[in-house]
């Protein structure tokens, strides 16, 4: 440091002074900070945040925790079956979403569908699906197709269709457009150019996205049973309703083990794909 300074004779002291911030810039900065704070305070009020209530509730929670030990093992076979049902809901729902999202992602990507007349409505449709949570869809489907895992499958499939279509189309847009342009110049149609020049290059990233969403859906499926859409969530709700704490503890442990296993597995698969 000193060497450089001595040799060149320059340093912080000879650097041109930092330009002063204008009064207006400083005022708008403070205004931004204050607005942010006011917004957060308003949110605290709206959310009924009350530390006293939390403190008063803690002993009750602690009591439940004590009652939950030791977790019961008598219903373990049923619970494992229900956990498998949860995984099945996520797997089937995600698979349906893949089939639905593949054609639409081509229509939602700028590089493959330059015309806004098609692309914008497709994007709006996908965003609409993504905006409604799988839980909400499941609630509707329980009313339409009845209680059980199938309602959960439909809920997961519809919501994931939206997210997947959007993410797939983004990974198409991230690809270099050259190979596609070269293929389109031969006069070949959309189906041929997309399936032959786009799919091979986009396959690693879309399988990564598929696995990630599957992993996400397995976590999301654990609560679907609360609205009657099958899986371990139904057991969870029953146990809470009946205040069966040892059983609740077992359910939570089963969920924890299941989710951890899936995360590990999916993480490893995705690393292998990359």
């Amino acid at each position, binding site marked *: 440091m000193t060497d450089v300074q001595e040799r060149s004779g320059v340093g912080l002291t000879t650097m041109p002074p930092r330009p002063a911030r204008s009064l207006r810039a400083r005022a708008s900065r403070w205004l931004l900070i204050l607005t942010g704070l006011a917004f957060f305070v308003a949110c605290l009020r709206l959310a009924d945040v009350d530390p006293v209530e939390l403190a008063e509730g803690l002993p009750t929670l602690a009591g439940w925790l004590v009652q939950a030990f030791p977790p019961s093992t008598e219903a373990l076979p049923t619970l494992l079956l229900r956990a498998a049902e949860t995984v099945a809901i996520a797997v089937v729902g995600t698979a349906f979403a893949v089939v639905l999202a593949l054609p639409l992602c081509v229509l939602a990507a700028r590089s493959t569908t330059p015309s806004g007349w098609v692309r914008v409505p497709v994007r709006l449709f996908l965003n609409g699906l993504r905006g409604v949570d799988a839980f909400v869809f499941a609630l509707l489907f329980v009313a339409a197709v009845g209680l059980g895992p199938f309602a959960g499958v439909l809920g997961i499939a519809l919501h994931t269709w939206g997210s997947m279509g959007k993410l797939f189309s983004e990974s198409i847009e991230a690809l*270099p457009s*050259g*190979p596609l*342009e*070269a*293929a389109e*110049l*031969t*006069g*070949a*149609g959309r*189906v*041929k*150019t997309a*399936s*032959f*020049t786009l799919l*091979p*290059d986009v*396959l690693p990233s879309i399988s990564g996205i598929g696995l990630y969403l599957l992993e996400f859906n397995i976590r999301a499926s654990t609560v679907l049973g609360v609205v009657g859409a099958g899986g371990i969530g139904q057991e969870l709700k029953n146990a809470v309703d009946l205040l069966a704490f040892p059983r609740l503890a077992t359910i939570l442990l089963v969920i924890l083990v299941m989710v951890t296993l899936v995360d590990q597995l999916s993480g490893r698969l995705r690393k292998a794909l990359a």
Partner: protein
Amino acid sequence: MTALSVRGLTHAYAGTPVLRAVDLDVQPGQVVAVVGPSGAGKTTLFRCLTRLVRADAGVLEVFGADLQQLEGSALRDARRELGLVFQSYNLVRRLSALQNVLVGRLADVPAWRVVLRRFPVAEQDLAARCLDQVGLLAFAHTRADRLSGGQQQRVAIARVLASRARVVLADEPVASLDPASASAVLAALRSLATDHGKAVVCSLHQVDLVAGFADRVVGLRDGRVVLDLPADRFDAATARDLYSRTPERTSA
């Protein structure tokens, strides 16, 4: 019949003129090298020639069809006469060399065969012969991203050879290649004209590559054609003139 005939091609980007009334004629079997300093309009000329960009004015005839006037499916059909070779090769990285050559055949293969990767034997045979032409038959089953830059560019040339294109547009095809790879690529381009009667237009920024490759040299500066010479008359002094800052008109 003239393969490519350009008259008065004019284009501006945001009010700045980039091409000013460019004229260019290329015959089947002929190689034309386009040279000129950076910013002369070479890249814009190529984008307009492929109709990736529609020039503001002018005539762009490919075997008599004016691409400037065509739209939609008529344009798509007419553009099948054009084969592109890009600086960045534009191969599908995760497909084999042979499959990349088959991309040139996509238009004539039924969609279900493309989706299932079941190309007719005749098409595969044709693709293999095209690869052989550029000396890469041994690499037929090698993935494109495992090939060297020069090899990838030769695969791209084989892809053009396999397609129906009779006019080949190569925009700086050897800009990122070492000298040995560059001469192999230019030899392959040369053979498209000599052995297959295609019309080749190729932009280069190394003027020393022109000799022994091109039949004609077209020099661009400030969006204008400032020289159009047989390649053997394009000497070092002419090249220096073209690249020097003080504009000094040279013409045939």
